[in-house]
């Protein structure tokens, strides 16, 4: 294979800025008048009126190619999850553009599931919410339940999810989310659920998904799982892209940064 074949890009971020606006952060005093002010003088007095702008991601550019597994690292609140959501098209960008090949999907269905319903109905509901067809869900149902291991200790799948232990619920959620194949897969710290046995099973499943997917993004604070799964790493800090390179190189710098109390910013 010629080395100069142009790699196929699957996700391109072009100078992406993401800003959250948060209502009701007035300093406490006079927040009611501030609210009125906000409504009357839309736009103009946003800051004065207690709308805080949180600039979560600043001018981030990168190109992800087919076949890559990319880790996203950074301290808490550095904008990793926000960036993933924007790549998935779930959060609008303030400026800049994100181009994608097909529809990237976030691995997670938690929000669509209902605690008052049985595990069985949640499998159906979650599958439909992710855009699977009814036939697809029917054919995968047993696989999902077996993978979650919910029924290992009795017939729990026909009980409401609120009766599950938190570990069981997390396992079922992961199993539902991982049931679908994706072109571009975004994983937000999904590996940390369940007991050790289940974690190994999920890591295996993620590797499988990676084979089927074009590109995988993985957000994690666990440097080991990043080393195990990714060959390239993006390091975000305070919303800015600080480093983009091979896993070892970036992780070394990151570990020095977090270990050395933020003393030696490289670059």
């Amino acid at each position, binding site marked *: 294979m010629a080395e100069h074949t142009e790699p196929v890009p699957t996700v391109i971020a072009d100078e992406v800025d993401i800003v959250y606006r948060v209502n009701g952060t007035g300093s406490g005093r006079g927040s009611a008048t501030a609210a009125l002010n906000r409504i009357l003088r839309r736009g103009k007095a946003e800051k004065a009126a207690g709308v805080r702008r949180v600039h979560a991601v600043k001018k981030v550019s990168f190109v992800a190619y087919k076949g890559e597994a990319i880790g996203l690292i950074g301290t808490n609140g550095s904008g990793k999850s926000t960036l993933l959501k924007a790549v998935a098209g779930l959060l609008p960008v303030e400026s800049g553009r994100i181009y*994608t090949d097909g529809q990237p999907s976030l691995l997670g269905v938690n929000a669509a599931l209902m605690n008052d*319903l049985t595990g069985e109905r949640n499998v159906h509901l979650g599958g439909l919410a992710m855009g699977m067809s009814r036939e697809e869900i029917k054919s995968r149902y047993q696989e999902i339940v077996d993978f979650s291991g919910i029924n290992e200790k009795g017939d729990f799948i026909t009980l409401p999810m609120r009766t599950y232990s938190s570990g069981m619920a997390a396992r079922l959620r992961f199993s539902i989310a991982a049931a679908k194949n994706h072109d571009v897969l975004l994983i937000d710290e999904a590996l940390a659920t369940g007991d050790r046995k289940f974690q190994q099973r999920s890591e295996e499943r993620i590797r499988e998904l990676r084979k089927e997917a074009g590109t995988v993004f993985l957000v994690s604070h666990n440097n080991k799982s990043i080393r195990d799964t990714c060959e390239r790493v993006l390091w975000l800090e305070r919303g800015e892209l600080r480093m983009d390179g091979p896993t070892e190189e970036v992780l070394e710098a990151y570990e020095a940064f977090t270990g050395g109390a933020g003393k030696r910013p490289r670059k």
Partner: protein
Amino acid sequence: MSQVLHAPPPAPAEDDLAALAARHGLSVSGARPSLPEYVRQLWARRHFINAFATAKLTAQYSEAKLGQVWQVATPLLNAAVYYFVFGILLGTSRGVADYVPFLVTGVFVWTFTQNSIMSGTRAISGNLGLVRALHFPRAALPVSFALQQLQQLLFSMAALVLILLGFGMTPGVSWVLVLPVLALQFVFNAGVSMVMARMGAKTPDIAQLMPFVLRTWMYVSGVMWSIDRTLTRSDVPHVVKVLLESNPAAVYIDLMRFALIDSFKAHQLPHHVWALALGWALLAGVGGFIYFWKAEETYGRG
């Protein structure tokens, strides 16, 4: 593919990126689809819409001891309260034939519209987690909530049939009219829900305001009194009566009464009532859908 791919690209210049994206046919993430494409996507999610509505409905009473019995008991209790206040205490029932069926029909039909609009207002703002986690046409949410209310109304209708039979109504051919009325009212409700969902997504405060708007709307819509009878006798200008009678809630309520109650005759309906029912449904349904779609890409912003 070889693994030589990742000598990490030294962040190319910005116009390069746009050109690179264009060369490989990548599309902008989170861009609003065209209207026909949006309709297609929404249709493809019909099973989700239905499953979500049913799930919400079932989850509602799952912790109650009586469980799903509340689906029927809640509307019945509501009707009982209104009967006590308006039928007995205030005597609104005077001169209205078959007052109990008249009142209960009104309350149930109105509740359908009221709850659809109320839950529509919170459809996006109350489900941000879902909007920010999964990709689907957002109109699925307000439509799904309206559908949940329709399912709820079908339970109420079962209770209503019992009440009607208990008060000596005889099932007739006109009962079939219930179906087109429900269909039109559903389209109307879903449309208004979508309008409210977009407004509520931008300004969540609207959800605090809506109960007052809706209560006012209820009192002018003849839910517990007869617009026709009350205003014909008083010296209210004719135009007011026409306006009150053509308001969509009154139109759907009166049509339902006409369909179900023997003593509610055609002359009590406003002129061109079916045209009004259809017109309101189309106006709200189509207009609401387009209005909602126009902001599709902004839902979920913090």
